[in-house]
């Protein structure tokens, strides 16, 4: 079953407006040098979005190469422990390359190829987006350079090797905090320098317009499949959708087709790091205030003077001081709510899922899993614990082995 209701789903969201704004958030805060490139990209995107041959080609790869649709798995043993009998996991970890990132990487790579570009550049944090772009580049015969912070290269080493094996150049970023934020700066600088034949594949629903929209659209296949799968299995729509939030692409991919269905609760789980009290977290939506980073106005962790804060999360993919502008709008309009899980809670959730269901989740996804405890308590007190919860299992955990070993490793699981 491959779903091709993209058009219908897109119409469900009234945002962004013509200037790339989601309410007060979004926009295009970039150097003038990039403006023509963004306009070219927007036009190409609008064109190919309605181009049947393009859509058919994308659909073909999603089905036969990526392996879509991904299963919606009822996690009965985990659900039993949590007191959530109708808990479903959307298995984005089963995509080719091991995460939801492939949906967007493939969409943008195909778009770039149709635009006549010869080279892809990308930023990456956990390495999942970098691997996905390197893969799409190999598949479509494009050159590829991935920018990655030094700090992330050491904590996600297997993904560095994967990208190199896929014949991508991995360029270490030494500036700033040496993580995703700085990799994004460096990728943007590279794009400014070599615009003409290069497409910059942004990996999340962040950046200047049209990126937040384009990435959301490519990821919304997640929510579209969930919608059909829940209807088939449960005869209705889910009550709760849960996903982790770094930039917010897997969450928006799940939420987007349900934004207009007001009875569906949308819950985004940010990285609580070592707790929200200090500054050792990455909870932009809960502890930030509106500001401009990487071309968009959105919630941002920053100091009084508007300098971007250094943040912390055990998960490289969530270790980002900003967040996609549409999430800021969903928060401001109270359509979605945003909560957090700490490093420790995420680790515990990792081991719980591994032990109960035989699935090693990415540490990013483990944050979403960790929030199932408080959610179950809340649902119970509201007498709703029998309702359908869908959690987006955005990626698999193989890449996190070294981090897990540093944090108690195998011994911990048997505690």
């Amino acid at each position, binding site marked *: 079953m491959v779903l091709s209701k993209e058009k219908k789903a897109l119409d469900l969201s009234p945002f962004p407006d013509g200037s790339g704004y989601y309410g007060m958030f979004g926009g295009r805060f970039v150097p003038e040098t990039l403006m023509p490139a963004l306009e070219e990209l927007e036009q190409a995107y609008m064109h190919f979005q309605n181009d049947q041959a393009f859509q058919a080609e994308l659909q073909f790869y999603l089905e036969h190469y990526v392996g879509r649709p991904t299963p919606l798995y009822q996690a009965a043993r985990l659900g039993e422990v949590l007191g959530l009998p109708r808990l479903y996991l959307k298995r984005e970890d089963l995509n080719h390359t091991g995460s939801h990132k492939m949906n967007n990487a493939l969409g943008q790579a195909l778009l770039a190829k149709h635009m006549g570009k010869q080279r892809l550049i990308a930023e990456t944090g956990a390495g999942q987006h970098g691997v996905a772009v390197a893969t799409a580049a190999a598949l479509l015969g494009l050159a590829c350079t991935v920018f990655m912070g030094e700090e992330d290269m050491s904590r996600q080493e297997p993904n560095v090797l994967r990208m190199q094996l896929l014949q991508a150049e991995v360029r270490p970023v030494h500036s700033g905090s040496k993580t995703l934020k700085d990799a994004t700066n460096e990728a943007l600088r590279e794009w400014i320098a070599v615009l003409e034949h290069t497409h910059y594949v942004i990996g999340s629903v962040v950046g200047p317009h049209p990126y937040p929209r384009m990435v959301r659209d490519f990821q919304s296949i997640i929510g579209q499949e969930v919608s059909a799968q829940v209807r088939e299995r449960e005869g209705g729509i889910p009550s709760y959708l849960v996903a982790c939030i770094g930039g917010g692409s897997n969450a928006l991919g799940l939420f987007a087709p349900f934004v207009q269905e007001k009875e569906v609760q949308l819950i985004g789980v940010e990285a609580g790091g070592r707790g929200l009290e200090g500054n050792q977290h990455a909870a932009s939506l809960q502890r930030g205030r509106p500001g401009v980073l*990487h071309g968009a106005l959105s919630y941002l962790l920053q100091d009084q003077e508007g300098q971007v804060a250094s943040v912390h999360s055990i998960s490289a993919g969530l270790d980002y001081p900003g967040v996609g502008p549409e999430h800021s709008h969903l928060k401001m309009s109270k359509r979605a709510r945003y909560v957090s899980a700490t490093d420790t809670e995420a680790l515990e959730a990792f081991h719980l899922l591994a032990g109960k269901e035989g699935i090693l989740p990415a540490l990013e996804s483990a944050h979403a899993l960790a929030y199932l405890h408080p959610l179950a308590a809340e649902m119970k007190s509201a007498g709703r614990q029998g309702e359908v919860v869908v959690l987006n299992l955005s990626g698999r955990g193989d890449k996190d082995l070294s981090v897990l070993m540093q944090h108690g490793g195998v011994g911990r699981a048997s505690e």
Partner: protein
Amino acid sequence: MPASKNERGIMHNRLEERFYQLQLHGAKALAVFLMGGDPDLETSLKLLRASLEGGADILEIGVPFSDPLADGPVIQKASQRARANQTTIEDIFYLVRELRKEHDAPVVLLSYWNPIYQYGPEQFFQQAKKIGVDGLVIPDLPYEEKRPFRPAAEACGMILIDFMTPLTGEERAHKILQQAAGFIYCVTVSGVTGVRDQLAETLEKSAAIVRNATRVPLLAGFGISSPSQARQAMQWTEGVIVGSALVQEVENHLEKREALPERIREQVRGFRRALDS
């Protein structure tokens, strides 16, 4: 400065007056960029003064920012040094206040948008204008995003500088140029700021577009690293902006900062001579 208004409703501004004077004498403008607070606040004040002594017409003072995505490594490092010294917006204002005690040269601040946005754009424009800033160069605030803030800036006589690049198409250029005031920052090469060996030929094309649309002066920036490049660029422009080459000099002499003012003065003098010869 007199607070009278010209026909466009913009208050008289040191930038406009300076360009008027330069034009009268058939001279080219030399704008100098230095990062505020680099290598330290007091030395950076000395370097700004030295630049004026060396013959700079316009000072462009950088406000340090954590994520300067339009800047190459040289200015990124300067920004980091200034931030390591805890340089604040108040410190940048201090530099302008001190300069204003002795100098009437136009001063513009180069700041990314977020520090201004957090300060409150209107308050920032007013406060900066009050202490003697004439214009703002905001590299991540293109025409469209600048539009909502123009009225507040114009109300207090603060000029928001616009950019032109080799990739700006003619249609877009006309839209930008209709609004432009002070000077137009002409990016000579695609890419971020930095020292380069080759000046792109596209400058000639950009200049032609600008000349057809506006009388606002054009300054070439990004990649003017030597006096000979400055001479080349001035054929098509009203002057040049020199930044990374000077900031590199600061980086090269961090251990001997007492000698820096003299070095910067001499280097600026070299550019001045090239423009005057």
